[in-house]
């Protein structure tokens, strides 16, 4: 199995890679951990998916060689590659896929195995037609099903593992996937060491390689201090440092290290505004907020030019994203004018007041994004100039999960960092219809939005959906429902120049399946 990459560089098989990571997450039960920003790296090497989604959101075959769907997108047929096996020896056949689909949808809640959150709730059931054909049935049209199969939650696990109890699934070494690597050893909160699977030969064609991986082992080692991770790579003690501090990237590049800042598919980093909470129920205030943020300064100060200005509230690489930059330009004069119009007058201390109340914005910094606090501080300075008083709060992950919710009391702006594969997902967050997430706390009050939502959800084809999405983006930003900050780079990789050829998928995980390391 000669791959083009190898031939070009003259590099050879073999090599060990140490990847320094800031956390190894919590449980290893596949369903509960597959979407973890940390464990996702390991799952990406240990397991395969039915489809491959590349960095631009393009869907291509992987374990599923072909697929078909009926006209209203309620029935799908998947045709699987033959000869694929899990590392425990069992076959990755139609029955195995059905078992996976079932557990993705339902989990085993009594045991603590959760469903995969973003797996379509409209799933009805799946049938193994023959060893390589699976038919999947939905209760309602589900256009997002196919892209979801390339989503990081949808990892294929051996049916034997799926059948085992949760406490056994929690032991990573007992879980079998079909990926190019297997878990050689691991220790909770310490490291996971992966070893190459020699008989692997069903890689996704889209990455230009289908045979076994080149690197012998990949060790994911937990080092929680960002500066230590980077320094270890600088001093040659490790090969990759995950989540470095953006400020350091420029100098690291100049030292010859490879810096990768792949963007994932999903929403940009920004706020979903709570329109129920005064004064953000006033469109003028929201628009002032939209115009009062200097997004370029955020990139200049907190980030580097690797970060992109937000052009919409979804990342610009998502198919269907359109450029709304005009709506997001920094215009403090306009913001002040809007606030004046809305009746917020500047007081002596520079803070605007209306009816004796100060113009207050409470920000709950996102604990998952290291730079969040800095950005909040910077924005607080920017808004301060036009008369806003900004309060920043910081919680730990658990408390944040408890206190900070969309439309929560005390949460005027919920900070979003969220990936998705299919832009159609957007319809599900706008209102509370059909179990929607109701990000803006609008319920059913905004006719225009309801209308757009229904049309997008009901669209039978991508082409029909595209103009609707454009209209939606314009509307949401103009109304100031969503205040983008920057396009998000949630994953930053600082890598030794010896390591080459890694691939980033649609959710920005690095895969070293194709990578090689020179001596």
């Amino acid at each position, binding site marked *: 199995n000669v791959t083009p990459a190898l031939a070009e560089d003259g590099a050879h098989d073999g090599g060990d890679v140490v990847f320094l990571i800031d956390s190894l997450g919590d449980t290893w039960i596949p369903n509960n951990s597959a979407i973890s920003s940390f464990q996702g790296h390991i799952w990406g090497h240990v397991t395969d998916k039915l489809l491959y989604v590349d960095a631009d959101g393009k869907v291509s075959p992987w374990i599923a060689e072909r697929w078909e769907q009926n006209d209203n997108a309620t029935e799908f047929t998947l045709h699987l590659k033959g000869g694929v096996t899990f590392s425990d020896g069992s076959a990755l056949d139609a029955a195995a896929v059905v078992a996976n689909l079932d557990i993705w949808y339902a989990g085993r809640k009594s045991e603590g195995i959760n469903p995969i959150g973003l797996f379509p709730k409209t799933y009805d059931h799946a049938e193994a037609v023959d060893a390589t054909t699976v038919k999947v049935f939905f209760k309602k049209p589900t256009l997002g099903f196919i892209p979801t199969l390339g989503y990081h939650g949808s990892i294929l696990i051996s049916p034997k593992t799926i059948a085992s109890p949760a406490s056994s699934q929690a032991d990573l070494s007992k879980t079998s996937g079909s990926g190019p690597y297997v878990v050689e050893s691991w220790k909770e909160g310490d490291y996971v060491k992966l070893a190459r699977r020699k008989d692997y030969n069903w890689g996704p064609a889209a990455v230009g390689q289908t045979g076994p991986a080149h690197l012998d082992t990949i060790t994911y080692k937990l080092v929680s*201090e*960002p*500066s230590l991770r980077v*320094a270890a790579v600088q001093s040659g003690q490790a090969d990759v440092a995950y989540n470095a*501090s953006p*400020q*350091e990237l420029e*100098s690291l590049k100049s030292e010859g290290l490879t810096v990768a800042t792949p963007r994932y598919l999903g929403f940009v980093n920004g706020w979903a505004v709570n329109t129920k909470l005064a004064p953000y129920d006033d469109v003028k205030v929201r628009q002032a907020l939209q115009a009062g943020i200097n997004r370029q*300064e955020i990139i*200049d*100060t*907190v980030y580097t030019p690797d970060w992109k200005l937000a052009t919409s509230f979804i990342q610009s690489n998502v198919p269907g994203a359109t450029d709304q930059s005009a709506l997001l330009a920094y215009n403090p004069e306009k913001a002040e004018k809007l606030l004046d119009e809305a009746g917020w007058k500047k007081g002596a201390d520079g803070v605007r007041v209306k009816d004796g109340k100060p113009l207050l914005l409470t920000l709950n*910094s996102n604990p998952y994004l*290291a730079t969040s*606090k*800095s950005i*909040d*501080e*910077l924005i*607080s*300075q920017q808004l*301060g100039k036009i008369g806003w008083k900004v309060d*920043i*709060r*910081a*919680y*730990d992950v658990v*408390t944040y999960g408890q206190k900070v919710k969309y439309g929560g009391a005390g949460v005027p702006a919920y900070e979003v960092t969220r990936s998705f594969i299919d832009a159609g997902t957007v319809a599900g967050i706008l209102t509370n219809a059909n179990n929607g997430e109701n990000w803006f706390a609008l319920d059913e009050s905004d006719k225009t939005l309801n209308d757009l939502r229904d049309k997008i959800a009901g669209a039978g084809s991508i082409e029909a959906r595209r103009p609707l999405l454009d209209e939606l983006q314009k509307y949401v930003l103009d109304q100031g429902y969503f205040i983008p900050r920057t396009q998000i780079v949630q994953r930053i990789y600082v890598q030794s120049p010896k390591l080459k050829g890694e691939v980033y998928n649609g959710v920005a995980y690095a895969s070293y399946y194709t990578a090689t390391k020179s001596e």
Partner: protein
Amino acid sequence: MTLASLSSTPTTLVGRLTGLRVPPVVILSFLIVTLAIAWSLAPGLFTGYDPVNGTPAQKLLGPSAAHWFGTDHLGRDLYARVVYGTASSVASALIAVVIGVVAGGIIGLLAGFFGGWVDTVFARLVDVLLAIPKFLLAVIVVTAIGFDTTNAAIATGVSAVALFARVMRSEVIKTRQATFVESSFLLGGSRWHILWRHVLPNASRSVLPLAVLQFGDSILVIASLAFLGYGDPPPASDWGLLISIGKDYLKWPWLVYAPALVTIATVLSVNRISRWLRKTD
């Protein structure tokens, strides 16, 4: 533990400062502590920079005449941040000490004075508090009541209760056996009179240096908690927070070393003063 320790010279702090020969190191320590107190009371007198709003274009500058400690990642003057962060650092350490001294003191006082089952109950309570590593306890408590510096201070104080209770108790027992306590009894003193007027003042004399010591220790514990992320949200600039933020920017080492040195200098001074108090007492 000899009777001689009761016969030590009680003098006021002022008396000690003016009357006695004070070693130069202690004078320096007092100066440093005074400066820290001045920083916390009137930070504006010591710096013209704004600790919250910086000039983003001037981020991460090295120490210079304009910026003594350099600037941070958002272009704020680090010296100003240190100066403005003093109040919170000092106040939180005070809160911790007050909680430890008051709660521990009361427990120790009651246990030592009344003895019997009161003592047994309190002694076990203190044992339990003592058995749980104090930093673990602080981490759990601060998680339970929420992340901010005041809560970290409360957690630190709670974890110091056992120490003060123990010392207070043994001091009270020592004092309670002193002849002058029995003598006050003969002179018509009631239990409460003896407890408040004789036992408490005498027992607290050795608690004072300990409290001073604990003040320094609390600064460190609270800084450690901040280092682990259990501190105030931005734009607060407690010393521990500054070190914690700085450690992510080790390319610009002054972000760590400037606040660290300020912390060390302060704690060292406080320790020195405590040692001196103990000696002169």
